């Protein structure tokens, strides 16, 4: 475990976020000085409750914030060592930063195959082999490749969303809640493939999740955020042993058994990360 932690510290960062602040509509401040880094070839998890600002963080990194009247007012985002400030979202995708948005966002009127074609827009030499790779990871998409993406089930749409990232062959994938609305079984399937992609292609990933147990299974390092800032972070092995994390994010008490939800709520009111 110590070895793994040391490896995280040594690897050069593919993404480095320092003290960013994000304001929506010139009025609502959502992020307050948030910093995190993703080391090359690692999966990093970003956890937190609803409204903590996880999705906003990803949008600030990929530049999609501008579409929602949000702005980065302070701090800096370095991707592959160069700042992303002033670069358009599509330019970042071409540089190898791929954002898989929350809620999948497949092109419903396009076929599965055309969805993948659209995702190759950011790279010059996509070939049939890249498509085969996606179909190898997700055989179900191959069966339905001629069908409209809008008719896929939720799980299949999530597979397609990840498949699009795969054909784009990026350096870093930002993955926003891949488990959203999926059954536990499907969630596990998706996360198995996320781990495979990371292991077989060395693609770095920043994964936002509500399902902490799942995220911990694939990530080597994790950040936990609350109301717009990081409240705790560390190697996953360390966090798994942390009493508070176990209680609030893994739903386990001291004995290791799942606790009654009412107790958790009671605890939460009394105890906060920051007071």
């Amino acid at each position, binding site marked *: 475990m110590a070895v793994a932690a040391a490896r995280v510290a040594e690897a050069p960062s593919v993404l480095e976020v320092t003290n960013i602040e994000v304001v929506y509509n010139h009025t609502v401040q959502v992020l307050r000085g948030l910093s995190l880094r993703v080391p090359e070839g690692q999966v990093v998890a970003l956890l937190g409750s609803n409204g903590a600002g996880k999705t906003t963080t990803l949008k600030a990194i990929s530049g999609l914030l501008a579409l929602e009247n949000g702005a980065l007012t302070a701090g800096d985002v370095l991707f592959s060592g160069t700042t992303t400030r002033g670069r358009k979202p599509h330019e970042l995708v071409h540089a190898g930063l791929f954002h898989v948005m929350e809620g999948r966002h*497949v092109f419903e009127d396009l076929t599965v195959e055309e969805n993948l074609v*659209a995702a190759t*827009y*950011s790279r010059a030499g996509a070939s049939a082999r890249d498509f085969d790779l996606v179909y190898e990871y997700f055989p179900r998409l191959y069966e339905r490749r001629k069908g409209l993406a809008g008719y896929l089930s939720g799980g299949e749409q999530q597979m397609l969303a990840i498949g699009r990232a795969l054909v784009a062959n990026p350096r870093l994938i930002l993955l926003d809640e891949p488990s959203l609305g999926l059954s536990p079984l499907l969630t596990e399937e998706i996360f198995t493939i996320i781990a495979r992609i990371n292991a077989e292609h060395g693609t770095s990933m920043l994964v936002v999740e509500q399902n902490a147990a799942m995220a911990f299974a694939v990530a080597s390092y994790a950040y936990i955020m609350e109301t717009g800032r990081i409240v705790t972070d560390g190697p996953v092995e360390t966090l798994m042993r942390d009493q508070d994390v176990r209680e609030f994010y893994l739903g386990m008490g001291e004995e290791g058994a799942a606790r009654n939800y009412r107790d958790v709520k009671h605890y939460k009111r009394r105890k906060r990360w920051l007071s």
Partner: protein
Amino acid sequence: MDWLFLAEVSLAGIGAGGLYALTGLAFVLIYKATRVVNLAIGEILMLGGYVFFGFAAGLALPTWLAILLTLAVAGLFGGVVERLLIRPMLGESPISVFMLTIGLGSILVGVVELLWGANPLQLPDYMPNTPLFIGEAYVSAKVATAFAVAAVTVVAFLLLFRFWRGGVALRATAGDQAAAYSMGIDVPRVFSLAWVIACITAAASGMLVGAIGGISPTMGVFGLSVLVVVIVGGLDSVLGAMVAGLFIGLLEALTGAFLGGEFKMLATFTLLVAVLVVRPYGLFGTHEIERL
């Protein structure tokens, strides 16, 4: 029943239908990419006719040069309109954008009347005049040429949308802009390109229509028939514009010949109502996928 007459009327109708399809294509391109209902399409077509007149008759340039310059001016016009009028309206209510294009149409009529006057004009003859016979049926060479140009263009676009990556990108942009951004598609450039290509297509159509029937500031009403065509065919379907264009061209010619010119409108709008009742999104238009 005079079969030869029927054949000739039908051929003329299909020829005119080709121009409907071509102009419909210009409309569909813009709608497909930007979801803007462009009611100025008839006036942009008219502008194409007049700009060609200016180059070919006013400046007495050779025909091929006048055609190329007209297409270039139309493309530039499309780019400027998109950048200055349409892009600031992104995210506004569709009705506002719709009204804006109506206003643009009126301005174009005014500008053309200021520059060239309100009287109908004749384009210099640039198309072959030798009569053409298909079997025994006579077809005007102009109509045949116009049809050939329209057919080639429409089919080319059909193939582009299916097999070219840029065509897929355009359809993706129309479907989900945020997702298109996240695929690395330069969304504003797609919008701009759609307007440029659509205006070039409309201007080409204007040169063909003008060569057959002459040009006048009121020729923008052609756009009204085209609106019927694209609604019948489906607002976002190139195939729909083609099929509906040909069919409505034929329908108008037949009713005009056998019932009288005053029944043309009656026939087309009856068709429009019938299609809307049965298929509200047009014959080939995509209807939203609802998953319950």
